[in-house]
């Protein structure tokens, strides 16, 4: 070609956008940014502002400073249990349900008989909303009319699966994991399918056994999937709400931060200031995870 002008990277001047380009870009970028501000950041900042006030949603707004926070931490018996339950939920999903999902994915990926069938069955609960899982849990674990107690035939002294404050959170976490495991399994299956078989062959030639192959070769190549699964697990644990709400409105051993927020803000109580303070606590916890994740990602991106 005659026009073979050598390009020098780094010294190119920025392309000038025509006016029309600028307008189009401005509009196309502006709409999502505006929506983001109005729908996400506006309410977030409003919540933070309201958390320093006392407001019932109707009358005047009274400034109370840090009183709400003081009350949340010191005078609200449901708060610390809720924090504990949220942390427990996260640990349970992260250390039990997620690894179990990975385990199933690996099994199916190695090719068991009827793998399609297993895949479908384990994935099935994912299509259910967690509220429905809560209803199913009630049918199975109900005190008087539940399936389990009927089978155990312990009418005199029934096990109160959902009413006993020491038991019910575990039952709920098992029910939530039932769904979470299938979700994680599908993600890992997709990831495993994309692992280059040559890697495994190379590892085998180098004399690695099956376990070494998996942990030293296959698992590290799943890094992108791991990140996604990690994020999903954290989100699922922090936003857990519908399943406990369906069972007993998130009371009596099933307190979660999300439930406390709705109870105070949305219900007849209308303690909007107080509820906002709890919401800010949850926001802070979530931001902690998000910032950690972003830092990791950016650092990873630089290294790659």
């Amino acid at each position, binding site marked *: 070609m005659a026009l073979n002008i050598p390009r020098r990277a780094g010294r190119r001047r920025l392309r000038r956008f025509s006016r029309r380009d600028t307008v189009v870009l401005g509009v196309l970028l502006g709409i999502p940014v505006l929506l983001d501000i109005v729908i996400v950041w*506006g*309410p977030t900042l*409003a919540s933070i502002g309201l958390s320093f006030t006392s407001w*019932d949603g*109707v009358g005047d707004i009274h400034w109370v400073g840090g009183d709400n926070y003081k009350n949340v931490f010191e005078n609200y018996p*449901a708060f610390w249990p809720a924090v504990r339950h949220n942390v427990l939920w996260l640990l349970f999903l992260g250390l039990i349900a997620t690894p179990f999902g990975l385990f199933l994915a690996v099994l199916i990926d190695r090719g068991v008989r009827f793998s399609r069938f297993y895949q479908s069955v384990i994935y099935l609960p994912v299509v259910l909303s967690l509220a429905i899982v809560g209803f199913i849990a009630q049918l199975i674990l109900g*005190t008087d009319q539940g399936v389990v107690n009927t089978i155990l035939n312990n009418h005199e002294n029934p096990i109160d699966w959902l*009413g006993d404050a020491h038991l019910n959170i575990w039952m709920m976490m098992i029910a939530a994991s039932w769904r979470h495991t299938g979700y994680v399994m599908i993600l890992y299956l997709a990831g495993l399918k994309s692992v280059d078989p040559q890697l495994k062959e190379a590892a085998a030639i180098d004399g690695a056994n099956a376990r070494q192959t998996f942990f030293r070769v296959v698992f590290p190549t799943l890094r992108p999937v791991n990140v996604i699964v990690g994020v999903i697990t954290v989100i699922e644990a922090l936003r857990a709400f519908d399943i406990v709400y369906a069972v007993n409105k998130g009371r009596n051993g099933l307190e979660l931060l999300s439930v406390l927020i709705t109870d105070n803000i*949305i219900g*007849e109580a209308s303690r909007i200031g107080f509820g906002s303070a709890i919401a800010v606590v949850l926001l802070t916890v979530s931001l902690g995870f998000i910032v950690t994740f972003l830092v990791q990602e950016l650092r990873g991106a630089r290294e790659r």
Partner: protein
Amino acid sequence: MSRRNLLRGAAVGAGALTLPVLLSACGNGPGGNKNEVTVGSNASDPVPKKAYAAAFSAYEKKSGKKVKVNTKDHNDFQENINRYLQGTPDDVFMWFAGYRMQYFAEKGLLHEISDVWSGFTGFSDALKEQSTHSGKQYFVPYYYYPWAVFHRKSLFQSKGYQQPKTWDDFIALAKQMSKDGTPVAFCDKDGWPAMGTFDYINMRLNGYDFHKSLMAGAEAWTDAKVKNVFDTWREVMPYYQKGALGRTWEEAGQSLQQRKTGMAVFGMPHPGTQFPENERDDIDFFAFPEIDPQYAQDAVEAPIDGFLVAKKSKNLDGAKALLKWLGTPTAENTYLALDPNNVAVNDGADTTKYSALQKKSAQLVSGAKQISQFMDRDTRPDFASTVMIKAIQDFIGNPKDVDGLCNSIERQKKTIFSSPVG
């Protein structure tokens, strides 16, 4: 920052919060239709729903106006009441008497209907007081149902149980029932059923006035009187069904029907709706037993349901015309013909068609020296729902630690009652 602007800002921001309002805003168009009255109904259960439909169609026939009923799930309606009243409420809506109504009147969300009230006949002074807030009437009572101890007549006969009059006899009976394998039915998964037992023990021990002022936040929960209520309640705990916190009121009602339990502290519709029609005659009750002779069995817990007009009602004249009719004996007769689990509030209502149970309920209430509403209707909604539900459930789960519980309630009460209403 003016309230209006903030509200507007909040409305934009709180899309999620306003959603229920948007969903329920299927009323009439701007200005409203003068020949149509909309009614917000929380009667989502089949029996009352049918009975209300009959009552409203009777009004349509009589007045030639249309009544459009928007029924929402009972609990959802209560949860969303604040936003409902500030959004686009129906002209008339169903609600409860007492503090739970006065709270919204205080906030300026209701329309006063003193002029409608002046035309009413057959309502007692007690009813008028329950419908009034600072000298103005807001509420049209429609029916009530008493709380008492319910049981099956046939079970008592076959086992030779006697209806107890005093607390000691009551405990002895509970003990016997527990021994016979039919313990006392008990449930509190829903958070409110056990409140009835608390209220009754409180009123029997400390009297109605104490209940009233305790609910109004004027008494200390750390008072020995309150601790005494919990201590007294603990006496009956061993004879309850196990696993109360995992049991709904429907399940407890069914256990009574299936003769698996002996008796239960309930409101009249609770066992009533769980018994098949041909077994309803077998339901009987006795007034909650006497603990302190000074207060005997004076107070009866009998929550009143009725109607209110929202401040933002579009068709005020239509709403008032409907209320005027709803306050008549005819209107109550129409309703009660189809819902045998309640009792009419109007003296002029026809009681000849009453079942034995309804007659007995009417007697119980007319003989009462004071009528209380219910814990969650006699106190502030924010206190009842965020503090008391958990407190009572905690007590049921761990009946030992009364001191810690009362201290915790008192601390929370102070913060909640210090924030003004309105």
